[in-house]
């Protein structure tokens, strides 16, 4: 791997950075999709050394055309188990180029990866026709000319000079292939995968696994849930705390764990814990910890906690 691509991987920085394994233990074809222009794309599932599903990948060769000018894009794409974009790799002799044949620079790669990772990009809802400025020329003779508002509204969503490449790659990455990846993973989803995802440090896996815990079985995953309450990624803690079974708040052991977290949680998660302790009998030790955390709280939070401390054991 050359240093440019290595740098790009490091810059990606999304939880567990998946490094494409040069010598995969096992790969199997998961499914095949056909792109709009009937290009066949085979997507492989790659396993870890322990023979666990790890990620999906595909070697894609597709033309990108503007009017009648085409160039061939060759790119290796990598997705996580849920169909979220992870990374890409380019063969050294087939770099990505913009339309003046200028090669992508590092900053372009960073931007492209960010766009590809954004499932709610505007590119999802614009077809190529709507992105192109030709309509301005067509109508300005008769109608008031519209400004290049296209660029203004979508310039953050495309790599400058590589509109077609960005659009096409986004749809390859986030279209049918991504949907089928999720389906494929769901078909083999079991308890082991659920637990691994819960234990991961990766937001997408944590959130997905949380939604997969059956309502009646939350007791089984208590340690993982509590961990996610304390240190889940992004807004995972708000979902994790919701999933905690009712009884846990009254269990002396877990109650202590939850109360101990308060000092290090963000403001809103602190409020979640404080609110849920209302009406719950508190152990002496829990009360003592709450007393100690008071100075770290805001005035309104202190008022709530003081009212918790007043209630009998």
């Amino acid at each position, binding site marked *: 791997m050359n240093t440019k691509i290595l740098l790009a991987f490091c810059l990606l920085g999304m939880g567990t950075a998946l490094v494409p394994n040069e010598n995969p233990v096992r790969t199997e074809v998961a499914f095949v999709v056909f792109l709009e222009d009937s290009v066949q794309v085979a997507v492989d599932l790659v396993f870890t050394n322990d023979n666990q599903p790890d990620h999906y990948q595909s070697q894609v060769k597709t033309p990108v055309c503007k009017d009648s000018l085409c160039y061939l894009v060759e790119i290796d794409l990598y997705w996580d188990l849920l169909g979220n974009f992870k990374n890409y790799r380019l063969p050294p002799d087939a770099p990505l180029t913009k339309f003046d044949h200028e090669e992508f620079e590092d900053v372009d790669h960073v931007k492209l990866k960010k766009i590809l990772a954004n499932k709610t990009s505007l590119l999802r*809802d614009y077809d190529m026709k709507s992105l192109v400025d030709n309509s301005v020329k067509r*109508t300005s003779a008769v*109608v*008031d000319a519209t400004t290049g508002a296209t660029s203004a509204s979508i310039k953050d969503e495309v790599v400058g000079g590589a509109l077609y490449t960005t659009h096409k790659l986004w749809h390859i990455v986030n279209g049918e292939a991504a949907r089928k990846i999720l389906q494929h993973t769901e078909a083999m989803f079991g308890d082991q995968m659920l637990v691994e995802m819960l234990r991961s440090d990766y937001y997408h896996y944590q959130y997905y696994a949380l939604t997969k815990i059956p309502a009646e079985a939350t007791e089984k995953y208590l340690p993982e849930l509590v961990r996610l309450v304390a240190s889940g990624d992004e*807004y995972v803690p708000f979902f994790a705390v919701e999933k905690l079974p009712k009884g846990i708040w009254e269990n002396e052991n877990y109650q202590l764990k939850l109360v101990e977290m308060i000092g290090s949680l963000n403001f809103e998660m602190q409020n979640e814990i404080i*609110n849920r302790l209302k009406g719950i009998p508190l152990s002496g030790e829990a009360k003592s910890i709450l007393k100690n955390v008071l100075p770290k709280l805001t005035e309104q939070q202190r008022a709530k906690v003081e009212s918790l401390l007043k209630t009998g054991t």
Partner: protein
Amino acid sequence: MEAKRRDFLKAAGLTSGAFFTSPVSLFGKSPVEQARAAEKSVYQVKKYDTDFLVAGGGMAGVCAAISAARNGAKVILIQDRSRLGGNASSEIRMHVCGATALKGQPWRETGIMEELFLTEAAENPQRSFEIWDFIMYDKVFSEPNITLLLDTVLYETEVAGGEIKKAKAICSQTEEIYEIKAKYYADCTGDATMAAQAGADFMRGREDKARWGESLAVDVADNKSMGNSLLFMSSKHGKPMPYTPPVWAKKYTKKDFIHRNIRGVEYGYWWLELGGLVDIIQDGQALRHDLLVTLFGVWDYIKNSGNHPEAENMALSWVGMIPGKRESRRVVGDYIMKQDDIQNAKIFPDRVAYGGWPLDDHPPEGMSSTDMVPYISIPLKGPYSIPFRSLYSKNIKNLLMAGRNVSVSHVALSSTRVMATCAMMGQAVGTGVAYCVKNGILPTKLGNDSSHMSRFQQQLLRQDQGMLGVKNVDNKDLARKAIVKASSETKAGAAANVLDGTNRDIQDGTSHQWQAEMKGGEPWLELSFGQPVRMNKVQLTFDTGSHRRLMLSGDDSVYNIQERGPQPETVADYVIEANTKNGNQVLAQIENNYLRRVEHIFEPTEVKSIRIKVQRTNGDALARIFEVRCYLEDIQRI
């Protein structure tokens, strides 16, 4: 009027016995007297015969009624509430959105909508929604051609031979039943109630991709729609204001607001939305309650979760009881607008209005699935045209429509539904009806006949309706024959611009307005005629800053960034003088103007030239005039 009991029941179309005894009129009477009184019909039938019945007094209906009246039609406007404005009224308080969404582009809606925007900004510094109701009421009431019937509910529409013959409405406050015959009818009810009663073809639900090739459509067609929203307002007090929700309010936690931003708490949220999964019309009673359950739950979260300490001194000051609707029926017209018409603007030959709001679709789940992103908003490159053929019914000849119930696909509706766009449709429909009355033609003729349509577009343009790519070619405009000069002009604002046929900034590199420095004194503009010309009307179009949003809103972040009051660019004080063979004569002298279009009517006068002297602007360093028009016509103020 006496009527037999059975006939009355049939006439009222109601089986409830409630109409037979009026508690007020029978109060204190003996049982015998009560029984006798019950035989008399309490409700009086009142018959009307008019040119134009507008059903629905929201933004679309108000503009339809006003524009028709101003163009000489006799109008009856029925509204099922005591206040006008629909979703914009004080009862619902949705702020009026439109083409100002096109950031940096000068497309705020003109015409009657602009009159309303400007009047509200100038006359409602107290930021009161009820006063806004009365601004609309005043505009409607000021039209002698309009008969306004409030608290009047349409309940029956009679059709024969593909035409509406009569509409029946009831007003419980006055105990009247109205039977209204009109030449033309406009359905501005939002739900297309009149159209449905009349047997007009309509669409409902979400069409699939295959239907019209819309990339934003759903994969499988269904009956779902965007939901209704319920709004609230809160105000700040000098001390903490504790809040206890009703026991039936929903409980929310932070996880429910991942996709729903609570930035300000003084005004409610568009995403407080439900109903797309049910029958949004017929399930309305339960839906309203579900929205209240949600609303109080959200307020409880704001007040009691601890996550919004800034709300500690805030308390609810108003809670809506009428949900703001977005979508239900859409009447089929000669043309159905689709996604492509919105994203790739077409120059329809029958273009009579424009839109500019993004394609803003909401998933039907609304607050019932807080894990879903509550909207997709796809900004547009520029404004798009709305054809007249989307504003009248395909199969009911004398039925037109304006508002959210027009001939559009579900996807297109996600842009056309906003109230400023609806207002423009209303003006197109009202003016169109007046045109049809005058020329004795059907709407479909107007929509499909190019020579009628060009004349109609000129009429609309003169009345400042916003349209794309329509220039002033009115042969009756005497100003077009004039030579124009000015005391001074800026490089960007040549005096000749006032006669260039365009009355607004259209971002084509020309300002289309005369501009002159105020600081030298009173700049003037002069139109002179080779041969003296007889005229009795002069119309001026001023600059009102059309790139800015301007509307009443409960949302501080929307309201506080506006230029409230008269718009600074607008000429405030001016004089129009005529040079006649008897010397100079003042035709008009105006102070404190804040309107965009002003028409001056005076005794027919033969002039060699007219001069418009600008004495004061509302703040701008430049005097600005977009257009001058002159006419000699029968007096009919438009």
